[in-house]
């Protein structure tokens, strides 16, 4: 089970879906949701400065409406701050070009959002230990 998860997504309804799915699948005990990449960067900067505990895994939406930059840019910024977190994209987009960009920015996985998100999260849960020790390859969960 993942200790703590941070979700950055502008869609509030998906926060609820993700929270319930994670709880039902016993993926995580604690989950925090943000709806802006700007807010996420501030929180990460604060965490790195003050040494506050960071989430074990971060899920980032690709297009975060109302934010200064997209999910790939957020991953790049967070990766530049330091490592120690599993980070990836969760998006309804399935563009290979974007997936390559995300991989280059430091994303370890890409989960495609759909009505049936649970089977993909279950697969991700199985692969999580590999991501945590950086042995897992970039994977797309379709």
């Amino acid at each position: 089970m993942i200790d703590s998860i941070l979700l950055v997504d502008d869609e509030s309804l998906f926060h609820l879906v993700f929270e319930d799915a994670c709880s039902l699948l016993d993926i995580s005990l604690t989950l925090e949701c943000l709806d802006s990449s700007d807010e996420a960067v501030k929180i990460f900067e604060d965490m790195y400065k003050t040494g506050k505990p960071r989430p074990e895994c971060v899920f980032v939406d690709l297009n975060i409406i109302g934010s200064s930059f997209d999910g790939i840019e957020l991953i790049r910024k967070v990766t530049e701050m330091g490592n120690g977190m599993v980070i990836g994209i969760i998006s309804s987009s399935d563009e290979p070009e974007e997936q390559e960009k995300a991989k280059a920015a430091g994303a370890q996985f890409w989960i495609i959002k759909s009505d049936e998100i649970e089977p993909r999260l279950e697969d991700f849960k199985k692969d999580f230990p590999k991501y945590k020790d950086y042995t897992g390859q970039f994977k797309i969960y379709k």
Partner: protein
Amino acid sequence: MKVDKSTRDLLLDIQKSKKIVLEGNILKVIEVDPSDVEFSKYIKESLDKDKETRRRRLDITKQVQTQNKDLLASQVENERINEELKETLEVVELSNKDLLASQIENERINEELKTALETAELAKKFAEDAKDAALDDLEIVQKKSQFELMGTIVKVALYVIMGVGVTTTLMYAIALLSGADTQIIGSTWSNMFGILLTNAFSIVGTIMGVKYASEKKE
């Protein structure tokens, strides 16, 4: 996380009296003594209830999410249709403006044509007047020529008549003065004189007749 006996009893009591149980992920971290059947059952029931609640909420949220997506798609479609309508309206307005401009241009051309027609009619009238004036002048010139010709004819005829008369009279006078026989020349002179007078009046009559006829024709 272990729960002490007082907390355990309190939780079970609340369940019995108020039918309220623990919810959420805290249930997953509570360690239960397997020998405590009652509390194990409490935790299991609470977990099952929590899962059932979450499952129901998840289904409803997904349903709302789908409806929301449909609504968003409808909104996008509505915006597209509105945009199309706006563009069509703009095209219609532009066409109306073009039509109005064409109408104004047509009116201007009609006005120009009207003016040109009036100018042409005026020019035609001037031309007709000029033609009439030219015809009048021509007629006057023709009449003048005719009168001059008639005058010349009259003069020549009178000169001829007078010449013939004078000549014959002189010959008759010479014959009388020289004592020659005047019987033949005398009758000839009187005949000649009569004929000349007759012809002279005939010429004058003819000329007057022609003049009268030409004036009546006008």
